[in-house]
């Protein structure tokens, strides 16, 4: 069984079983593949280099749209214009955090220092946002139903399995954020 993250002298430490690492790694890889911008033929390489993407459109996949939301309510044109200027670098920020977390999973000991905790919390959050879309969590009531699913022996179908995975990621992120808040507290 995984151990909750905790804040101590070495930084923020955690423990995950090999199977749990494997699970997280595949979840992270899934989210990375959703976020990787597709390379289009005839794209202006200079524009791409400075992060512009004039051909971008609002994502059709709801999970991707949740990761890369519109910046204005009820103004699609302004939101699209903003996407052209910022979406590429936002994708890169997220992929960077996800990759950093995946790299940590390759180490024997899970010790998070420097930007590690922030990257991990962002990565776990994006993983949870995607799982929540797949589980169709639309409000607190839906979230409550999913939360009831805690027993791995009950995992009979894809949905109950996803719910268990979601709850595991939630528990892990909560313990991490508590450790991060504790570490902020002591530095104040």
């Amino acid at each position: 069984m995984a151990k909750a993250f905790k804040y101590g002298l070495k930084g923020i430490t955690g423990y995950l079983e090999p199977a749990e690492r494997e699970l997280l790694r595949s979840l992270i890889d899934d989210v990375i593949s959703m976020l990787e911008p597709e390379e289009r033929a005839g794209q202006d390489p200079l524009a791409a280099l400075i992060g512009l993407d004039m051909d971008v459109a609002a994502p059709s996949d709801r999970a991707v749209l949740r990761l890369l939301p519109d910046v204005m309510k009820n103004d699609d044109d302004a939101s699209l214009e903003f996407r052209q200027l910022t979406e590429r670098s936002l994708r890169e920020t997220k992929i960077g955090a996800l990759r950093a977390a995946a790299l940590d999973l390759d180490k024997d000991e899970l010790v998070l220092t420097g930007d590690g905790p922030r990257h991990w919390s962002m990565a776990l959050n994006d993983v949870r946002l995607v799982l929540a879309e797949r589980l169709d969590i639309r409000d607190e009531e839906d979230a409550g139903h999913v939360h009831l699913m805690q027993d791995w022996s009950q995992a009979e179908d894809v949905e109950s399995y996803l719910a268990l995975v979601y709850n595991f990621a939630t528990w892990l992120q909560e313990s991490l954020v508590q450790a991060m808040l504790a570490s902020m507290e002591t530095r104040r």
Partner: protein
Amino acid sequence: MTVSVAPRPDIQEGTRTGTEEATGSLTAPDIPWNLVIWNDPVNLMSYVSYVFQSYFGYSGTKANKLMMEVHKKGRSIVASGSKEQVERHAVAMHGFGLWATVEKASGGPGGKSGKSGGSGQGKGKRG
């Protein structure tokens, strides 16, 4: 309930005089904008508070207050400033996975801190 959240007084001082008589131009450069964080059922309350503390440098008390406002009222204005400033904040919030939008501080939906029930955005109440 919500008014203390945004740095409103300085904003009003900053814009009052200029725009009032400025030949009907709608794009005065210092029209304040708000950064709005919306409630969603996924983001952890602790995480939202952590983001407010670490990114904006808010105290734990202030961060928790804003977080509870998001949770209970469905949205909260967590920062104000120029359009460029709040847009930069919005990208950062999206990086953290929070659901953030920007809107004009005055005249926009909920621009008067929403206490008169002007939420009207469909999402209504949650939580």
